[in-house]
């Protein structure tokens, strides 16, 4: 019950922060030099039409009023306003592109957790051996190399030289398959496993490029957490008490090491979507990050507020989940933000 109450308070707090964020971005948008409606319509459209669109989009009203209408639209109808760039509702656009990218990020998040914990554990257990050194060199390069450099390197190696993976793009989805918008999930829901295999095949390099920096960082954190715990008194005691090596590593060492690992993991996962945009551009994945990029570059007012809000929501949700995870792992810590 206590956890539930704390979580509720946390969620409320987060909602307020997100509200403030959206207002902030909203105020930014209003001071865009030039007229976004005019620049999206081109110089040929008559002034009356422009005025009509401006008033439809509430651009002729004062900032607080416009903001109020926008919030009202979201709360009552899930309406994020109209995009001046795609000329569709921003909510529709988000619903179309977000699931694709979430799928990409989900696979990436799983890969980061699995590989990070695996490599970190190997590195810590065989501390200072050759394998530890190899892993540490890898983590070093992983952390300092930008994701796009990995993407290009993998493209050159796996696509152009070895011809193992496609250079970019995704398989075409038959229209009757499209349900959620997430490619792999839609293929699975339609029961088309061959297509699912194709989707996975085309997603392999994007997921790998997106994950490798995270894997490297996660490995570092997990290794140092495990190394720290190996020297702790309770491990020496467990050893003396005759606990076997396997149980020692997997039960007594792993669990406490997960606390720092998990905290860092949260930040990594939360930033995946933001990092995905170059990967999506390079591999022509056409997901949410690429959509965000186009609305930002085209100064599309409602588009920008919409995508930043989505980024904020995802960031917040991941953080709340991670806090809950950590407080389950470590009963000493309560949920954060309980001042």
């Amino acid at each position, binding site marked *: 019950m206590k956890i539930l109450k704390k979580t509720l308070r946390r969620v409320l707090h987060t909602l307020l922060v997100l509200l403030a964020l959206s207002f902030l971005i909203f105020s930014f948008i209003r001071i865009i030099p030039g007229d976004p409606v005019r620049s999206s319509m081109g110089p040929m459209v008559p002034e009356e039409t422009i005025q009509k669109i401006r008033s439809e989009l509430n651009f002729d009203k004062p900032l607080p009023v416009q903001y109020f209408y926008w919030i009202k639209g979201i709360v009552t109808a899930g309406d994020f306003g109209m995009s001046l760039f795609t000329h569709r509702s921003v909510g529709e656009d988000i619903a179309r592109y977000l699931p694709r990218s979430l799928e990409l990020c989900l696979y990436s998040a799983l890969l980061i957790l699995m590989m990070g914990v695996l490599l970190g554990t190997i590195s810590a257990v065989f501390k200072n051996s050759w394998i530890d050194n190899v892993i540490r060199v890898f983590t070093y*390069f992983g952390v300092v*190399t*930008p994701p796009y450099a990995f993407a290009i390197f993998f493209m050159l190696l796996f696509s152009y030289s070895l011809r193992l993976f496609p250079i970019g793009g995704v398989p075409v989805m038959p229209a009757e398959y499209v349900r959620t918008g997430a490619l792999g999930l839609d293929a699975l829901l339609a029961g088309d496993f061959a297509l699912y295999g194709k989707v996975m095949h085309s997603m392999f390099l994007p997921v790998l490029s997106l994950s490798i920096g995270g894997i490297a960082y996660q490995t570092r954190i997990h290794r140092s957490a495990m190394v720290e715990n190996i020297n702790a008194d309770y491990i020496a005691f467990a050893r003396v008490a005759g606990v076997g090596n396997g149980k020692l590593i997997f039960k007594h060492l792993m669990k406490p090491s997960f606390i720092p690992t998990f905290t860092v993991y949260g930040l990594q996962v939360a930033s995946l979507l933001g990092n995905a945009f170059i990967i999506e551009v390079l591999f022509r994945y056409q997901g949410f990050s690429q959509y965000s990029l186009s609305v930002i570059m085209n100064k599309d007012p409602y588009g920008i507020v919409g995508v930043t809000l989505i980024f904020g929501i995802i960031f917040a949700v991941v953080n709340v989940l991670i806090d809950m995870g950590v407080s389950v792992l470590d009963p000493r810590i309560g949920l954060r933000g309980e001042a």
Partner: protein
Amino acid sequence: MEMQQTLSATTNPRVEAFKKDWYKFSRNPMSLLGLAVVILVIFCAIFADVIAPFPEDAGLAVYMERAFEGPSGQHLAGTDQFGRDVFSRMLIGLRYSLGIGLLVLALSVPFGVILGLLAGYFKGTWLDILIMRFTEIFMSIPPLILAMVVCTIFGNGYLFASIGIAVAWWPWYTRLTYNMVTSLSNELFIVYTELSGVKVMRIILREMLPNITSSVITKMSLDMGSIIITASSMSFVGLGVQPPTPSLGSMVSEGVAYLPEFWWLTIMPALMVVLIVMSFNLLGDGLTDVLAMEEK
């Protein structure tokens, strides 16, 4: 022996402390390597147009007769689609990358640290709540996205790209300073200074600030790498330094169209980014180690 000891005791304690820190730092060859490369990188950035074999290639030069030449003795990193020397362009790009990094730190660190000092010192008051809630808002979306939004809205270019990144970056310094100051507040020397009636601003600037400087500097060194990656990701999509002026990110993204035959167009500038980021990280790790040893 005794004579020597008294002699060294009379020398400047700051110099002594620095010597001690330098000794700790220099024991790790990787830290030294990082420092050496950072110095080399800064040197190259300052004298880029002197070192660059073809400084005029930073602009709109076109030499169709030597387009797409692979790396050779004359063109260390090959030439691009207009026959421009990639190595020269990389050096100029390096200058802008470093410049953005320094500009972002110069904008975000003082702002973030001052807010952190104020919020931390006045913990529990309305000022603390105001500052820290404000900080939270800026931390609630990925820095890269916030930086891109600010940059496109206020005007694309070198300066606004830096301002954009700075807008996304200062909260982390506020958070760091805040945490350090709140734990410092309970230290006896701060409590005594307060009791002896020293003015608040003096306590913050003369007693607290010096105690957090080394952590802030260490974070700055580590952040330099992340900022350069962020800036290069932005210039990858055309935000920041505008063509024909080269930036490492835009060089990589332009080169992608010519993969795989003309690999040097992408690989060389990408390696340059890796080199810069790695050197600042090695330096930062070395500084972190010195700090950690001091705390023990």
